[in-house]
Structures are given as C-alpha cells and as structure tokens.
C-alpha cells in the first residue's frame, strides 16, 4: 500500500490543436485537445500533459483557452509546458486550471527564474524539463548528457546531471527527463539517463522520450527508477489503452492505481 506509479499521456498542441494527431475510437474531432483530454480522463490516466509547441507569439493565447476548457471537464492533474517564461505566464496558466507548469528554455537561460517561480507558487507546481542528449565520450567510462533547449535543437553546454541537481536546489518539485536521442524513436527510454538523474535527486522524476511498447514503461520504472512514465504515440494511436498499460505494469510487479 503506497503511492502508485503514474502514467501520463502527453499531447503536443500547436495553435490550439493537437499535432501528430490523435486516433482514438469514438473521438469526434481528433485534433481537439479538450476532447482528447476528456477521453484520457475517463480512461483513468493519472495525469495529463499538454506541450504547447506554438511558435508564434500571437498563437500563444490559444493554450489558455484549451486549458480553461479542459478544466471544465477533467478532474485530474494537468501539466502545461512550452513557452513558459514569466511569472505572469505561470499565473495565467494556473488560473485557467493548470496544476503544474513545465519549464525548459527559461530554466536554462535564467536559472533564478526557478527560484522565483517556486517561491511564488510552491515547489509542487514547478516542473523542470530536462531535455538531454548523450555526449560521446572518448574513454566511454562514464556516461554524460548535455542539456538542449528549443525542442532539442539548441545545445546549452550544460551537463544534465549538474543541471538537474541545481534545479532541485532552486525549488523544482519534479523533473521531466526527456532523452532527445530517443524521442519519437519508439525504442524505449534512455534508461541510464533516467536512472542517473532519478537516483541523484530527492524529487520525483518523470521518464519521457522513446516509448514504443508497454515493456518500455515497465523498464522506465524498474530500471530507470522513475516515479511516473510519460508517453504520446502509443496511446494516441490506440496501440494500447491506458488500462492495458496499467494492467501490464501491475502484472510486472509495479503498483498501479486501477480503481
């Protein structure tokens, strides 16, 4: 009897619509994030994550409307990431109904922002996105990862483990660790990356990037030591349902919420 491992479906939202597409049965409009959120809510997802990948400044306001409409129908925790740069951005998202915000570029460019944000809204609502790529080392003795920003396009020169520890100290309440090498590959999480960070910090780590089958979710918890697992396409395209994933993980000895 204890805290259960969380499954978090993640939706990429651009200009208020889901991109990559969501292909559920019984979904009227596959591009509407609110409909997808409602479907995941009733399927028993433990949390939901929206990643706003809108590039233009004008398009930004659409995410507030999406979050607001989601909060009318979904009574589950919601994390929103993408383009969160100011205290005002966070306040607006929380007032619309988000529970946590995921911060990436702003945390790299101005680490103090994490101190200010967690002081203001509490550690529990500040998630830092650790987007990392493996660094090719000559000796190959110790693995290293480098932090990237801008959706994995821009190298920061920062070491991922040092960054993670710094973010924890500054008040992050959770880390969303994404392997940019694995993202979209469907070959599984970078388990060494996940485990290295999860074992070093006291705050929960969400594993992300690379899930292609249910066993990858199990590995993320058992080998990666993650407190939660995030996935997109295996759920969106109906390859597996949330309850199938939970049953599979439970069968493999992981405590899951199945009420």
């Amino acid at each position: 009897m204890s805290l259960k491992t969380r499954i978090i479906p993640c939706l990429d939202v651009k200009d208020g619509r889901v991109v990559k597409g969501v292909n559920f049965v019984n979904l009227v409009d596959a591009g509407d994030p609110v409909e997808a959120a409602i479907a995941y809510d009733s399927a028993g997802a433990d949390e939901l994550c929206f990643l706003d990948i809108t590039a233009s400044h004008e398009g930004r306001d659409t995410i507030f409307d999406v979050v607001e409409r989601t909060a009318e129908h979904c009574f589950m925790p919601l994390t929103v990431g993408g383009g969160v740069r100011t205290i005002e951005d966070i306040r607006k998202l929380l007032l619309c109904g988000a529970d946590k915000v995921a911060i990436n570029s702003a945390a790299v460019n101005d680490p103090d922002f994490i101190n200010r944000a967690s002081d203001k809204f509490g550690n529990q609502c500040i998630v830092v996105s650790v987007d990392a790529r493996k660094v090719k080392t000559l000796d190959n003795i110790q693995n290293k990862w480098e932090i990237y920003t801008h959706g994995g396009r821009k190298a920061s020169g920062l070491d991922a483990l040092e960054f993670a520890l710094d973010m924890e100290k500054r008040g992050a309440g959770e880390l969303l660790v994404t392997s940019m090498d694995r993202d979209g590959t469907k070959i599984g999480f970078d388990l060494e990356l996940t485990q290295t960070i999860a074992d070093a910090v006291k705050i929960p780590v969400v594993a992300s990037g690379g899930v292609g089958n249910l066993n990858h979710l199990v590995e993320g918890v058992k080998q990666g030591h993650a407190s939660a697992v995030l996935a997109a396409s295996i759920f969106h395209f109906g390859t597996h349902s949330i309850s199938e994933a939970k049953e599979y993980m439970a069968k493999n000895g992981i405590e899951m919420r199945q009420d």
Partner: protein
Amino acid sequence: MSRYIAIIDYGSGNLRSAQKALQLAAKNLDLPIEIIVSNRPEVIDKAERIVLPGVGAFADCYNGLFSIADIGSILEQRIIKQGLPFLGICVGMQLMAETGHEKGEHKGLGWIKGDVREIKPSNKSLKIPHMGWNEIIFNQDHVLLENLSDGLNGQHAYFVHSYQMQIKNQNDLLASCDYGGEITAMVGKDNIAGTQFHPEKSQKFGITILENFLRWKP
C-alpha cells in the same frame, strides 16, 4: 443573492478547478446552488458553506487569507460560533492547525490541535514531494466518506505536498494514507473538515467527497 457556496480567493491556488469540481458535485446532486469564488468579506460572510483552498507555503497562505478585511472575525462568527460547514483543501486544511513549521514557525487558525511539519518517510528512498495517487485508509465513519471504499483495492486520491498535519487528538483524524509512515489525509471536527489531497483533482473519488460535503449537515 440566491444561495451560494463561497470559495475564498486569497491569491493562492487553482480556484477554477475547485469551482468546476464543486459545480459538478452540485449538479450530480441536483442542488440548485451557485459556487462563487470571492475575496470580498461581505460575500464570504453570506455564504451557506465555505471552502478554503490553498497551494503554496503555509505562511504565504495564512498572510494571504488575513489580507482579506475582517476575515478572522467572519470565520470565527460563521464557522466556529454558528457552525457553518467548512472544507479546507491542501494548505487550506493545514491552516486549521495551531502552528506551521514551513520556512520558520507560523501561527495557524488553531481549529484542530496539532502542527504542520515536513514529511520524513522512514524509507529514505521515497521522494519528496509526496506526489501522486495514494490509497486512502478510513480512520472512522463520517458523512464525507460515504459511498467510497478504502483499504486494499480501495480508492485513491491525488496528493501533492511536502509538509503534513500531525494531529494531537486521534478523534480528529478521518482518513490517512501510508508513505513511509502515516500521512494525515483528512481531518474533521464538528462542522469543519479538511483534505490534504486535492478532491478537485481526484476524479470520481474526489467528486464524491465534494458531493458528500455539499449534503453534509453537521
């Protein structure tokens, strides 16, 4: 103004979710009642039930609450003297304790004997914050726990906190959960109750708790 329930707005937390969840609970019960989010003393004073949410640090929330004019005497009059049903959520529950020990020592409302301290799980590998879905254990019968199930194969609630309320009088403990030791999940005494978890984020379990609160006649 017609009948309404007031959610106290003191600049903390995600009030919209609490409002939407209470609206759904009222609708499920066919209760013709409005759910109003307000920081105006005269609105809070005339409510038929009061909900105090809270996200953030103990002292910030306490100070935020007491920045509302006369809130101390309104709560004293309506909740303590007249017995209006009251529900505190998360830090809103913690504020009912005598003292909080988050970032220094701070005074609370003192409605429930006990204090708020950092969670220290016996198993050092357990993560802090205590974040996610945990199984609820009922410590006594209470209207707020009706139509719910606990124990093994019981229901879960969504928690996210690093501090917890340690109560002095076990009679005030309605429900708990296990996280390397006992965590206070729900407290209750006379007409006041509180949940450490977020009913507004706990799907069916949470909505049922809110329905129970709405039909509670202490």
